Protein backbone atom coordinates (compact mmCIF):
# COMPACT_ATOMS: atom_id res chain seq x y z
CA UNK A 1 0.00 0.00 0.00
CA UNK A 2 2.85 2.36 0.75
CA UNK A 3 4.08 1.88 -2.82
CA UNK A 4 0.67 2.92 -4.13
CA UNK A 5 0.60 6.09 -2.11
CA UNK A 6 4.18 6.95 -3.11
CA UNK A 7 3.23 6.82 -6.79
CA UNK A 8 -0.14 8.49 -6.19
CA UNK A 9 1.41 11.46 -4.41
CA UNK A 10 4.06 11.73 -7.11
CA UNK A 11 1.43 11.82 -9.86
CA UNK A 12 -0.77 14.32 -8.06
CA UNK A 13 2.17 16.65 -7.44
CA UNK A 14 3.05 16.52 -11.13
CA UNK A 15 -0.51 17.30 -12.14
CA UNK A 16 -0.89 20.24 -9.77
CA UNK A 17 2.38 21.71 -10.99
CA UNK A 18 1.10 21.96 -14.57
CA UNK A 19 -0.95 25.15 -14.19
CA UNK A 20 -1.04 25.84 -17.91
CA UNK A 21 -2.76 22.55 -18.55
CA UNK A 22 -5.29 23.15 -15.78
CA UNK A 23 -6.06 26.66 -17.05
CA UNK A 24 -6.73 25.46 -20.60
CA UNK A 25 -8.87 22.61 -19.30
CA UNK A 26 -11.08 24.91 -17.24
CA UNK A 27 -10.98 27.69 -19.83
CA UNK A 28 -12.53 25.76 -22.71
CA UNK A 29 -15.98 25.00 -21.23
CA UNK A 30 -16.19 28.39 -19.49
CA UNK A 31 -15.46 30.34 -22.68
CA UNK A 32 -17.89 28.23 -24.68
CA UNK A 33 -20.59 28.79 -22.06
CA UNK A 34 -20.16 32.56 -22.30
CA UNK A 35 -20.00 32.44 -26.12
CA UNK A 36 -23.07 30.28 -26.68
CA UNK A 37 -25.26 31.56 -23.86
CA UNK A 38 -26.78 34.32 -25.97
CA UNK A 39 -26.97 32.25 -29.15
CA UNK A 40 -30.50 31.49 -28.09
CA UNK A 41 -32.76 33.10 -25.54
CA UNK A 42 -31.28 31.82 -22.25
CA UNK A 43 -34.73 31.22 -20.81
CA UNK A 44 -36.12 29.34 -23.81
CA UNK A 45 -36.86 25.69 -23.20
CA UNK A 46 -34.77 23.45 -25.47
CA UNK A 47 -34.39 19.74 -26.15
CA UNK A 48 -37.08 18.82 -23.66
CA UNK A 49 -37.94 20.59 -20.48
CA UNK A 50 -35.00 22.72 -19.35
CA UNK A 51 -34.07 26.29 -20.25
CA UNK A 52 -31.15 26.93 -22.62
CA UNK A 53 -29.06 28.44 -19.81
CA UNK A 54 -29.43 25.19 -17.83
CA UNK A 55 -29.05 22.94 -20.86
CA UNK A 56 -25.83 24.70 -21.82
CA UNK A 57 -24.45 24.56 -18.28
CA UNK A 58 -25.02 20.81 -18.03
CA UNK A 59 -23.60 20.38 -21.55
CA UNK A 60 -20.51 22.40 -20.68
CA UNK A 61 -20.05 20.32 -17.53
CA UNK A 62 -19.98 17.27 -19.79
CA UNK A 63 -17.69 19.05 -22.25
CA UNK A 64 -15.38 20.20 -19.43
CA UNK A 65 -15.20 16.66 -18.03
CA UNK A 66 -14.44 15.36 -21.54
CA UNK A 67 -11.70 17.95 -22.15
CA UNK A 68 -10.18 17.41 -18.70
CA UNK A 69 -10.18 13.64 -19.10
CA UNK A 70 -8.67 13.75 -22.58
CA UNK A 71 -5.96 16.24 -21.64
CA UNK A 72 -5.03 14.83 -18.24
CA UNK A 73 -4.72 11.33 -19.65
CA UNK A 74 -4.02 11.70 -23.34
CA UNK A 75 -1.37 14.36 -23.87
CA UNK A 76 0.63 13.76 -20.73
CA UNK A 77 0.51 9.99 -20.84
CA UNK A 78 1.51 9.62 -24.44
CA UNK A 79 4.44 11.95 -23.71
CA UNK A 80 5.74 9.89 -20.82
CA UNK A 81 5.28 6.68 -22.74
CA UNK A 82 7.40 8.11 -25.54
CA UNK A 83 10.31 8.80 -23.17
CA UNK A 84 10.26 5.18 -22.01
CA UNK A 85 9.13 6.09 -18.48
CA UNK A 86 6.07 3.82 -18.60
CA UNK A 87 8.33 0.93 -19.57
CA UNK A 88 10.78 1.75 -16.78
CA UNK A 89 7.91 1.64 -14.28
CA UNK A 90 7.07 -1.87 -15.48
CA UNK A 91 10.40 -3.03 -14.04
CA UNK A 92 9.67 -1.68 -10.56
CA UNK A 93 7.39 -3.29 -7.95
CA UNK A 94 4.54 -0.99 -9.02
CA UNK A 95 1.76 -3.27 -10.35
CA UNK A 96 0.50 -2.57 -13.87
CA UNK A 97 -3.09 -2.14 -12.68
CA UNK A 98 -2.11 0.48 -10.12
CA UNK A 99 -0.26 2.52 -12.73
CA UNK A 100 -3.46 2.64 -14.81
CA UNK A 101 -5.70 3.14 -11.77
CA UNK A 102 -3.58 6.05 -10.54
CA UNK A 103 -3.77 7.73 -13.95
CA UNK A 104 -7.57 7.40 -14.02
CA UNK A 105 -7.87 8.65 -10.43
CA UNK A 106 -5.68 11.66 -11.17
CA UNK A 107 -7.91 12.53 -14.15
CA UNK A 108 -11.00 12.23 -11.97
CA UNK A 109 -9.44 14.62 -9.46
CA UNK A 110 -8.98 17.19 -12.25
CA UNK A 111 -12.54 16.74 -13.53
CA UNK A 112 -14.22 17.65 -10.22
CA UNK A 113 -13.01 21.29 -9.99
CA UNK A 114 -13.81 21.78 -13.69
CA UNK A 115 -17.43 20.81 -13.03
CA UNK A 116 -17.61 23.18 -10.06
CA UNK A 117 -16.17 26.11 -12.03
CA UNK A 118 -18.66 25.61 -14.88
CA UNK A 119 -21.52 25.47 -12.38
CA UNK A 120 -20.33 28.66 -10.68
CA UNK A 121 -20.17 30.38 -14.07
CA UNK A 122 -23.66 29.05 -14.87
CA UNK A 123 -25.03 30.50 -11.64
CA UNK A 124 -23.14 33.79 -11.80
CA UNK A 125 -23.40 34.66 -15.51
CA UNK A 126 -26.14 32.36 -16.84
CA UNK A 127 -28.55 32.99 -14.01
CA UNK A 128 -29.08 29.30 -13.26
CA UNK A 129 -30.93 28.92 -9.96
CA UNK A 130 -31.01 25.55 -8.17
CA UNK A 131 -31.43 24.46 -4.57
CA UNK A 132 -28.27 23.66 -2.59
CA UNK A 133 -29.12 19.96 -2.48
CA UNK A 134 -29.66 19.90 -6.26
CA UNK A 135 -26.31 21.60 -6.91
CA UNK A 136 -24.56 19.01 -4.77
CA UNK A 137 -26.49 16.16 -6.37
CA UNK A 138 -25.77 17.45 -9.87
CA UNK A 139 -22.08 17.86 -9.15
CA UNK A 140 -21.68 14.37 -7.71
CA UNK A 141 -23.74 12.81 -10.49
CA UNK A 142 -21.76 14.50 -13.26
CA UNK A 143 -18.52 13.61 -11.50
CA UNK A 144 -19.20 9.90 -10.98
CA UNK A 145 -20.62 9.60 -14.49
CA UNK A 146 -17.42 11.20 -15.90
CA UNK A 147 -15.41 8.04 -15.25
CA UNK A 148 -15.53 6.96 -18.94
CA UNK A 149 -13.98 10.33 -19.92
CA UNK A 150 -11.09 9.76 -17.52
CA UNK A 151 -10.64 6.26 -18.92
CA UNK A 152 -10.94 7.55 -22.49
CA UNK A 153 -8.09 10.02 -21.90
CA UNK A 154 -5.83 7.29 -20.53
CA UNK A 155 -6.88 5.09 -23.46
CA UNK A 156 -5.83 7.76 -25.97
CA UNK A 157 -2.55 8.20 -24.09
CA UNK A 158 -1.86 4.51 -24.49
CA UNK A 159 -2.86 4.20 -28.13
CA UNK A 160 -1.51 7.35 -29.74
CA UNK A 161 1.97 8.75 -30.33
CA UNK A 162 2.73 12.14 -28.80
CA UNK A 163 2.88 13.84 -32.21
CA UNK A 164 -0.63 12.69 -33.04
CA UNK A 165 -2.07 12.93 -29.53
CA UNK A 166 -3.01 16.58 -29.82
CA UNK A 167 -4.96 16.34 -33.11
CA UNK A 168 -6.65 13.11 -32.01
CA UNK A 169 -7.75 14.73 -28.75
CA UNK A 170 -9.02 17.82 -30.57
CA UNK A 171 -11.04 15.70 -33.00
CA UNK A 172 -12.48 13.57 -30.17
CA UNK A 173 -13.35 16.69 -28.18
CA UNK A 174 -15.39 18.21 -30.99
CA UNK A 175 -16.84 15.03 -32.50
CA UNK A 176 -18.04 13.76 -29.11
CA UNK A 177 -19.04 17.29 -28.11
CA UNK A 178 -21.01 18.16 -31.24
CA UNK A 179 -22.61 14.80 -32.01
CA UNK A 180 -23.30 14.25 -28.34
CA UNK A 181 -25.50 17.35 -28.45
CA UNK A 182 -23.32 19.46 -26.16
CA UNK A 183 -23.45 22.53 -28.45
CA UNK A 184 -26.83 22.00 -30.11
CA UNK A 185 -29.59 19.78 -28.70
CA UNK A 186 -29.70 16.42 -30.45
CA UNK A 187 -33.43 16.89 -31.03
CA UNK A 188 -32.54 19.66 -33.51
CA UNK A 189 -30.47 17.22 -35.58
CA UNK A 190 -31.46 14.83 -38.40
CA UNK A 191 -32.96 11.50 -37.16
CA UNK A 192 -29.91 9.36 -37.96
CA UNK A 193 -27.70 11.68 -35.87
CA UNK A 194 -30.22 11.46 -33.06
CA UNK A 195 -29.90 7.67 -33.16
CA UNK A 196 -26.10 7.82 -33.36
CA UNK A 197 -25.95 10.10 -30.31
CA UNK A 198 -27.50 7.37 -28.15
CA UNK A 199 -24.24 5.41 -28.16
CA UNK A 200 -21.92 8.35 -27.45
CA UNK A 201 -20.66 8.76 -23.87
CA UNK A 202 -20.97 12.55 -24.14
CA UNK A 203 -24.71 12.36 -24.94
CA UNK A 204 -25.38 9.88 -22.14
CA UNK A 205 -23.36 11.89 -19.63
CA UNK A 206 -25.23 15.14 -20.33
CA UNK A 207 -28.55 13.27 -20.45
CA UNK A 208 -28.08 12.08 -16.86
CA UNK A 209 -27.56 15.68 -15.68
CA UNK A 210 -30.55 16.94 -17.65
CA UNK A 211 -32.74 14.10 -16.39
CA UNK A 212 -31.86 15.01 -12.82
CA UNK A 213 -32.89 18.63 -13.39
CA UNK A 214 -36.09 18.05 -15.37
CA UNK A 215 -37.12 15.34 -12.93
CA UNK A 216 -37.59 12.67 -15.60
CA UNK A 217 -35.49 10.14 -13.63
CA UNK A 218 -32.06 8.70 -14.29
CA UNK A 219 -32.42 6.07 -16.97
CA UNK A 220 -30.49 2.82 -16.57
CA UNK A 221 -29.70 2.98 -20.28
CA UNK A 222 -27.46 6.03 -19.84
CA UNK A 223 -25.57 4.38 -16.98
CA UNK A 224 -25.21 1.22 -19.02
CA UNK A 225 -23.63 2.99 -22.00
CA UNK A 226 -21.23 4.93 -19.76
CA UNK A 227 -20.27 1.81 -17.80
CA UNK A 228 -19.72 -0.11 -21.03
CA UNK A 229 -17.28 2.55 -22.28
CA UNK A 230 -15.36 2.61 -19.01
CA UNK A 231 -15.14 -1.18 -18.85
CA UNK A 232 -14.26 -1.82 -22.50
CA UNK A 233 -11.62 0.90 -22.69
CA UNK A 234 -10.25 -0.14 -19.29
CA UNK A 235 -9.76 -3.72 -20.42
CA UNK A 236 -7.96 -2.62 -23.60
CA UNK A 237 -5.70 -0.28 -21.60
CA UNK A 238 -4.63 -3.00 -19.17
CA UNK A 239 -4.00 -5.43 -21.98
CA UNK A 240 -2.05 -2.84 -23.89
CA UNK A 241 -0.01 -1.86 -20.86
CA UNK A 242 1.00 -5.44 -20.18
CA UNK A 243 1.84 -6.32 -23.77
CA UNK A 244 3.27 -3.11 -25.05
CA UNK A 245 5.97 -2.24 -22.57
CA UNK A 246 7.76 -5.43 -23.46
CA UNK A 247 8.03 -4.42 -27.11
CA UNK A 248 11.18 -2.90 -28.46
CA UNK A 249 13.20 -5.23 -26.31
CA UNK A 250 13.85 -7.73 -29.08
Amino acid sequence: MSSLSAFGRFELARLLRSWKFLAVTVGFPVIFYMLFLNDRTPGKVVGGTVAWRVYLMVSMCSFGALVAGLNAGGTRLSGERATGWARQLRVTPLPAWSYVATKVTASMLVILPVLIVVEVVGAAFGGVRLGVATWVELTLLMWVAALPFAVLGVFVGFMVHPETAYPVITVLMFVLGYFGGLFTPVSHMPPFLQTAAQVLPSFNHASLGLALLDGSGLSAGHWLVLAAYAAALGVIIIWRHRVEESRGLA
Partner: protein
Amino acid sequence: MSSGFPARIGPPRHLSEVPREASAGDPGAVDGLRALRFADVVYRYGDKLALDHLNLEVARGEMLAVLGPNGAGKSTTMAVLLGLLHPRSGSVEVLGTSPRQAMADGRVGAMLQQVSGSGLPPGVRVGAVVNMVRRLYRRPAPLEVTVERTGIGPLLNRQTNRLSGGEAQRVRFAIAIAGNPELVFLDEPTAAMDVEARRVFWRIIRQLGREGHTVVFATHHMDEAEHADRVVVINRGRVVADGPTATLKAAVTTRRLRFVAEGADVSVLDKLVGVTDVEVRGTGVVLNSLDADATVRDLVRRNVTFCDLEVTGARLEEAFVALTGDEPAPEETR
Protein backbone atom coordinates in the same frame (compact mmCIF):
# COMPACT_ATOMS: atom_id res chain seq x y z
CA MET B 1 39.56 -23.35 -35.92
CA SER B 2 40.94 -26.88 -36.46
CA SER B 3 40.68 -27.88 -32.80
CA GLY B 4 37.15 -26.51 -32.65
CA PHE B 5 35.85 -24.25 -29.96
CA PRO B 6 34.13 -25.94 -27.09
CA ALA B 7 30.53 -24.93 -26.70
CA ARG B 8 31.05 -24.91 -22.97
CA ILE B 9 34.39 -24.02 -21.53
CA GLY B 10 34.62 -25.99 -18.35
CA PRO B 11 31.65 -26.41 -16.06
CA PRO B 12 30.27 -23.15 -14.68
CA ARG B 13 31.11 -22.98 -11.01
CA HIS B 14 27.63 -23.17 -9.61
CA LEU B 15 26.91 -26.30 -11.58
CA SER B 16 29.88 -28.07 -10.06
CA GLU B 17 28.56 -27.10 -6.64
CA VAL B 18 25.01 -28.19 -7.29
CA PRO B 19 24.30 -31.28 -9.37
CA ARG B 20 21.78 -30.52 -12.08
CA GLU B 21 19.65 -33.54 -11.12
CA ALA B 22 19.26 -32.25 -7.60
CA SER B 23 18.25 -28.82 -8.76
CA ALA B 24 15.62 -30.20 -11.10
CA GLY B 25 14.16 -32.58 -8.54
CA ASP B 26 14.27 -30.38 -5.48
CA PRO B 27 14.41 -26.71 -6.32
CA GLY B 28 13.95 -25.70 -2.70
CA ALA B 29 17.26 -27.22 -1.74
CA VAL B 30 19.29 -24.86 -3.90
CA ASP B 31 17.26 -21.70 -3.55
CA GLY B 32 19.91 -20.22 -1.33
CA LEU B 33 22.54 -20.52 -4.02
CA ARG B 34 20.70 -19.74 -7.20
CA ALA B 35 19.71 -16.29 -8.40
CA LEU B 36 18.10 -17.38 -11.61
CA ARG B 37 17.51 -20.34 -13.82
CA PHE B 38 16.48 -20.72 -17.45
CA ALA B 39 15.52 -24.24 -18.45
CA ASP B 40 14.98 -24.98 -22.11
CA VAL B 41 13.37 -21.62 -22.78
CA VAL B 42 11.89 -20.96 -26.21
CA TYR B 43 10.66 -17.56 -27.30
CA ARG B 44 9.44 -16.53 -30.74
CA TYR B 45 8.58 -13.19 -32.29
CA GLY B 46 6.18 -14.33 -34.96
CA ASP B 47 8.18 -16.94 -36.86
CA LYS B 48 11.56 -15.58 -35.75
CA LEU B 49 13.09 -17.76 -33.08
CA ALA B 50 14.60 -15.38 -30.49
CA LEU B 51 15.44 -17.91 -27.77
CA ASP B 52 16.16 -21.41 -28.95
CA HIS B 53 16.03 -23.79 -25.98
CA LEU B 54 18.16 -21.53 -23.85
CA ASN B 55 19.62 -22.92 -20.64
CA LEU B 56 21.29 -20.73 -18.08
CA GLU B 57 21.86 -20.66 -14.35
CA VAL B 58 23.34 -17.88 -12.29
CA ALA B 59 24.48 -18.22 -8.69
CA ARG B 60 23.71 -15.61 -6.06
CA GLY B 61 26.35 -12.97 -5.80
CA GLU B 62 27.70 -13.75 -9.23
CA MET B 63 28.43 -11.04 -11.77
CA LEU B 64 27.48 -12.28 -15.19
CA ALA B 65 28.05 -10.68 -18.57
CA VAL B 66 25.71 -11.73 -21.35
CA LEU B 67 27.60 -11.14 -24.54
CA GLY B 68 26.47 -11.39 -28.11
CA PRO B 69 25.87 -9.46 -31.30
CA ASN B 70 22.72 -7.38 -31.76
CA GLY B 71 19.73 -9.59 -32.32
CA ALA B 72 21.40 -12.56 -30.61
CA GLY B 73 18.72 -12.77 -27.93
CA LYS B 74 20.35 -10.77 -25.11
CA SER B 75 17.50 -8.31 -24.67
CA THR B 76 14.89 -11.02 -25.08
CA THR B 77 16.65 -12.95 -22.32
CA MET B 78 16.50 -9.82 -20.14
CA ALA B 79 12.83 -9.24 -20.94
CA VAL B 80 11.94 -12.82 -19.98
CA LEU B 81 13.91 -12.52 -16.73
CA LEU B 82 12.07 -9.29 -15.94
CA GLY B 83 8.70 -10.90 -16.54
CA LEU B 84 7.97 -8.63 -19.51
CA LEU B 85 7.86 -11.54 -21.95
CA HIS B 86 6.50 -15.00 -21.33
CA PRO B 87 8.26 -17.88 -23.02
CA ARG B 88 6.30 -20.37 -25.13
CA SER B 89 7.97 -23.28 -23.42
CA GLY B 90 10.56 -23.97 -20.79
CA SER B 91 10.74 -22.61 -17.28
CA VAL B 92 12.19 -19.46 -15.79
CA GLU B 93 12.92 -18.94 -12.14
CA VAL B 94 14.18 -15.76 -10.52
CA LEU B 95 15.24 -15.77 -6.85
CA GLY B 96 13.32 -18.99 -6.33
CA THR B 97 10.05 -17.67 -7.71
CA SER B 98 8.55 -16.37 -10.95
CA PRO B 99 10.07 -13.28 -12.61
CA ARG B 100 6.89 -11.27 -11.97
CA GLN B 101 6.72 -12.26 -8.32
CA ALA B 102 10.38 -11.42 -7.75
CA MET B 103 9.73 -8.03 -9.35
CA ALA B 104 6.55 -7.40 -7.33
CA ASP B 105 8.40 -8.32 -4.14
CA GLY B 106 10.91 -5.57 -4.81
CA ARG B 107 13.86 -7.93 -5.11
CA VAL B 108 14.82 -6.95 -8.65
CA GLY B 109 16.07 -3.69 -10.13
CA ALA B 110 16.64 -3.04 -13.81
CA MET B 111 18.06 -0.59 -16.27
CA LEU B 112 16.54 -1.13 -19.67
CA GLN B 113 18.06 -0.37 -23.02
CA GLN B 114 16.79 3.01 -24.11
CA VAL B 115 15.50 3.04 -27.67
CA SER B 116 14.60 6.73 -27.62
CA GLY B 117 13.96 9.31 -24.93
CA SER B 118 15.38 9.63 -21.44
CA GLY B 119 13.38 6.84 -19.80
CA LEU B 120 12.19 9.43 -17.28
CA PRO B 121 8.88 11.27 -16.82
CA PRO B 122 8.96 14.79 -18.29
CA GLY B 123 8.58 17.90 -16.16
CA VAL B 124 9.69 16.55 -12.78
CA ARG B 125 12.79 17.03 -10.70
CA VAL B 126 15.26 14.16 -10.74
CA GLY B 127 15.17 13.89 -6.93
CA ALA B 128 11.40 13.39 -6.90
CA VAL B 129 11.59 10.56 -9.43
CA VAL B 130 14.40 8.68 -7.71
CA ASN B 131 12.76 9.04 -4.32
CA MET B 132 9.38 7.89 -5.61
CA VAL B 133 10.87 4.75 -7.20
CA ARG B 134 12.88 4.09 -4.03
CA ARG B 135 9.67 4.06 -2.01
CA LEU B 136 8.08 1.47 -4.28
CA TYR B 137 10.52 -1.05 -2.74
CA ARG B 138 10.14 -2.73 0.62
CA ARG B 139 13.71 -2.44 1.82
CA PRO B 140 15.20 0.45 -0.14
CA ALA B 141 18.67 1.86 0.24
CA PRO B 142 18.75 5.27 1.95
CA LEU B 143 18.36 7.97 -0.70
CA GLU B 144 21.70 9.55 0.24
CA VAL B 145 23.50 6.27 -0.38
CA THR B 146 22.06 5.91 -3.87
CA VAL B 147 22.73 9.56 -4.64
CA GLU B 148 26.31 9.41 -3.43
CA ARG B 149 26.99 6.13 -5.13
CA THR B 150 25.73 7.16 -8.55
CA GLY B 151 26.99 10.73 -8.28
CA ILE B 152 23.62 12.27 -9.16
CA GLY B 153 23.81 14.82 -6.32
CA PRO B 154 24.23 17.81 -8.67
CA LEU B 155 21.29 16.58 -10.80
CA LEU B 156 18.70 16.21 -8.02
CA ASN B 157 17.09 19.62 -8.57
CA ARG B 158 17.26 19.48 -12.35
CA GLN B 159 14.19 18.83 -14.50
CA THR B 160 14.29 15.39 -16.12
CA ASN B 161 13.87 16.80 -19.61
CA ARG B 162 16.98 18.98 -19.21
CA LEU B 163 19.46 16.13 -18.83
CA SER B 164 22.09 15.02 -21.32
CA GLY B 165 22.00 11.41 -22.51
CA GLY B 166 24.76 10.40 -20.13
CA GLU B 167 23.15 12.20 -17.18
CA ALA B 168 19.78 10.56 -17.86
CA GLN B 169 21.55 7.22 -17.94
CA ARG B 170 23.08 7.85 -14.54
CA VAL B 171 19.65 8.73 -13.17
CA ARG B 172 18.21 5.53 -14.64
CA PHE B 173 21.02 3.60 -13.02
CA ALA B 174 20.15 5.27 -9.69
CA ILE B 175 16.53 4.18 -10.24
CA ALA B 176 17.67 0.60 -10.87
CA ILE B 177 19.56 0.36 -7.57
CA ALA B 178 17.50 2.77 -5.39
CA GLY B 179 15.42 -0.09 -3.99
CA ASN B 180 18.52 -2.03 -2.90
CA PRO B 181 17.47 -5.06 -5.00
CA GLU B 182 19.11 -8.46 -4.57
CA LEU B 183 19.35 -8.88 -8.32
CA VAL B 184 20.23 -6.10 -10.77
CA PHE B 185 19.72 -6.36 -14.52
CA LEU B 186 21.48 -3.93 -16.81
CA ASP B 187 20.84 -3.98 -20.55
CA GLU B 188 23.63 -2.21 -22.45
CA PRO B 189 24.18 0.00 -19.41
CA THR B 190 26.96 2.25 -20.67
CA ALA B 191 25.65 3.03 -24.16
CA ALA B 192 25.49 6.82 -23.69
CA MET B 193 28.35 7.21 -21.20
CA ASP B 194 31.72 8.78 -21.86
CA VAL B 195 34.96 7.08 -20.85
CA GLU B 196 35.11 8.64 -17.39
CA ALA B 197 31.46 7.87 -16.66
CA ARG B 198 32.05 4.27 -17.67
CA ARG B 199 35.01 3.95 -15.35
CA VAL B 200 32.95 5.25 -12.43
CA PHE B 201 30.02 3.07 -13.42
CA TRP B 202 32.01 -0.16 -13.40
CA ARG B 203 33.56 0.76 -10.08
CA ILE B 204 30.04 1.02 -8.58
CA ILE B 205 29.00 -2.25 -10.19
CA ARG B 206 32.00 -4.09 -8.75
CA GLN B 207 31.17 -2.59 -5.35
CA LEU B 208 27.60 -3.90 -5.65
CA GLY B 209 29.02 -7.31 -6.49
CA ARG B 210 31.24 -7.24 -3.40
CA GLU B 211 28.20 -6.45 -1.27
CA GLY B 212 26.58 -9.66 -2.46
CA HIS B 213 24.21 -8.31 -5.10
CA THR B 214 23.81 -10.49 -8.15
CA VAL B 215 24.45 -8.47 -11.28
CA VAL B 216 23.53 -9.56 -14.79
CA PHE B 217 24.40 -7.25 -17.64
CA ALA B 218 24.08 -7.53 -21.38
CA THR B 219 26.64 -5.93 -23.63
CA HIS B 220 28.18 -6.16 -27.03
CA HIS B 221 31.34 -4.39 -25.87
CA MET B 222 33.92 -7.07 -25.32
CA ASP B 223 35.98 -4.94 -22.94
CA GLU B 224 32.97 -4.51 -20.65
CA ALA B 225 32.43 -8.24 -20.35
CA GLU B 226 35.82 -8.35 -18.65
CA HIS B 227 34.28 -6.72 -15.57
CA ALA B 228 32.24 -9.88 -14.98
CA ASP B 229 33.15 -13.05 -13.07
CA ARG B 230 31.62 -15.09 -15.79
CA VAL B 231 30.68 -14.57 -19.41
CA VAL B 232 27.89 -16.22 -21.33
CA VAL B 233 27.97 -15.75 -25.07
CA ILE B 234 24.58 -15.91 -26.73
CA ASN B 235 24.10 -16.20 -30.44
CA ARG B 236 20.94 -16.98 -32.37
CA GLY B 237 19.07 -17.58 -29.14
CA ARG B 238 21.44 -20.18 -27.74
CA VAL B 239 24.29 -20.17 -25.27
CA VAL B 240 27.34 -20.81 -27.41
CA ALA B 241 29.93 -20.34 -24.68
CA ASP B 242 29.81 -20.12 -20.93
CA GLY B 243 32.66 -19.83 -18.50
CA PRO B 244 34.78 -17.65 -16.25
CA THR B 245 35.97 -14.58 -18.12
CA ALA B 246 39.62 -15.61 -17.99
CA THR B 247 38.85 -19.11 -19.23
CA LEU B 248 36.88 -17.77 -22.13
CA LYS B 249 39.78 -15.64 -23.21
CA ALA B 250 42.28 -18.43 -22.79
CA ALA B 251 40.12 -20.84 -24.68
CA VAL B 252 40.53 -18.90 -27.83
CA THR B 253 43.78 -19.71 -29.47
CA THR B 254 43.87 -16.72 -31.74
CA ARG B 255 47.10 -14.77 -31.40
CA ARG B 256 47.99 -11.44 -32.86
CA LEU B 257 51.36 -11.08 -34.60
CA ARG B 258 52.80 -7.64 -35.26
CA PHE B 259 56.01 -6.99 -37.12
CA VAL B 260 57.68 -4.60 -39.51
CA ALA B 261 58.39 -5.78 -43.05
CA GLU B 262 59.57 -3.81 -46.08
CA GLY B 263 57.35 -4.31 -49.12
CA ALA B 264 55.42 -7.24 -47.67
CA ASP B 265 53.22 -9.01 -50.21
CA VAL B 266 49.69 -9.37 -48.88
CA SER B 267 48.99 -12.35 -51.12
CA VAL B 268 51.96 -14.16 -49.58
CA LEU B 269 50.99 -13.21 -46.01
CA ASP B 270 47.47 -14.37 -46.65
CA LYS B 271 48.67 -17.89 -47.48
CA LEU B 272 50.73 -18.30 -44.33
CA VAL B 273 49.84 -21.28 -42.16
CA GLY B 274 47.23 -20.43 -39.51
CA VAL B 275 46.54 -16.87 -40.65
CA THR B 276 42.93 -15.70 -40.50
CA ASP B 277 43.35 -11.99 -41.05
CA VAL B 278 45.97 -9.71 -42.62
CA GLU B 279 46.37 -6.00 -42.15
CA VAL B 280 49.22 -4.01 -43.76
CA ARG B 281 49.80 -0.34 -42.98
CA GLY B 282 52.96 0.97 -44.65
CA THR B 283 55.67 -1.26 -43.27
CA GLY B 284 53.61 -2.39 -40.30
CA VAL B 285 51.93 -5.76 -40.53
CA VAL B 286 49.33 -7.29 -38.22
CA LEU B 287 48.33 -10.92 -38.60
CA ASN B 288 45.72 -12.87 -36.69
CA SER B 289 46.67 -16.49 -36.43
CA LEU B 290 45.19 -19.62 -34.95
CA ASP B 291 48.69 -21.10 -34.62
CA ALA B 292 51.30 -18.43 -33.98
CA ASP B 293 54.28 -20.82 -33.91
CA ALA B 294 53.44 -22.35 -37.25
CA THR B 295 52.86 -18.94 -38.78
CA VAL B 296 56.29 -17.70 -37.67
CA ARG B 297 57.98 -20.84 -39.02
CA ASP B 298 56.17 -20.33 -42.31
CA LEU B 299 57.28 -16.68 -42.43
CA VAL B 300 60.91 -17.80 -42.16
CA ARG B 301 60.45 -20.60 -44.72
CA ARG B 302 59.00 -18.17 -47.26
CA ASN B 303 61.89 -15.77 -46.76
CA VAL B 304 59.76 -12.87 -45.63
CA THR B 305 62.17 -10.40 -44.00
CA PHE B 306 60.65 -9.12 -40.80
CA CYS B 307 61.75 -7.45 -37.59
CA ASP B 308 60.28 -6.32 -34.26
CA LEU B 309 58.02 -9.37 -34.04
CA GLU B 310 55.48 -9.19 -31.24
CA VAL B 311 52.92 -11.88 -30.39
CA THR B 312 49.96 -11.00 -28.16
CA GLY B 313 46.94 -12.85 -26.89
CA ALA B 314 43.63 -12.14 -28.51
CA ARG B 315 41.31 -9.65 -26.96
CA LEU B 316 37.88 -10.82 -25.97
CA GLU B 317 36.70 -9.26 -29.19
CA GLU B 318 38.48 -11.90 -31.26
CA ALA B 319 37.31 -14.59 -28.89
CA PHE B 320 33.81 -13.45 -29.55
CA VAL B 321 34.23 -13.54 -33.33
CA ALA B 322 35.67 -17.01 -33.13
CA LEU B 323 32.90 -18.29 -30.89
CA THR B 324 29.93 -16.90 -32.74
CA GLY B 325 31.36 -16.92 -36.23
CA ASP B 326 29.96 -13.41 -36.58
CA GLU B 327 31.52 -10.03 -36.79
CA PRO B 328 30.81 -7.98 -33.67
CA ALA B 329 27.83 -5.77 -34.28
CA PRO B 330 28.54 -2.18 -35.28
CA GLU B 331 28.01 0.22 -32.41
CA GLU B 332 24.78 1.78 -33.51
CA THR B 333 23.91 3.01 -30.07
CA ARG B 334 26.26 5.97 -30.09
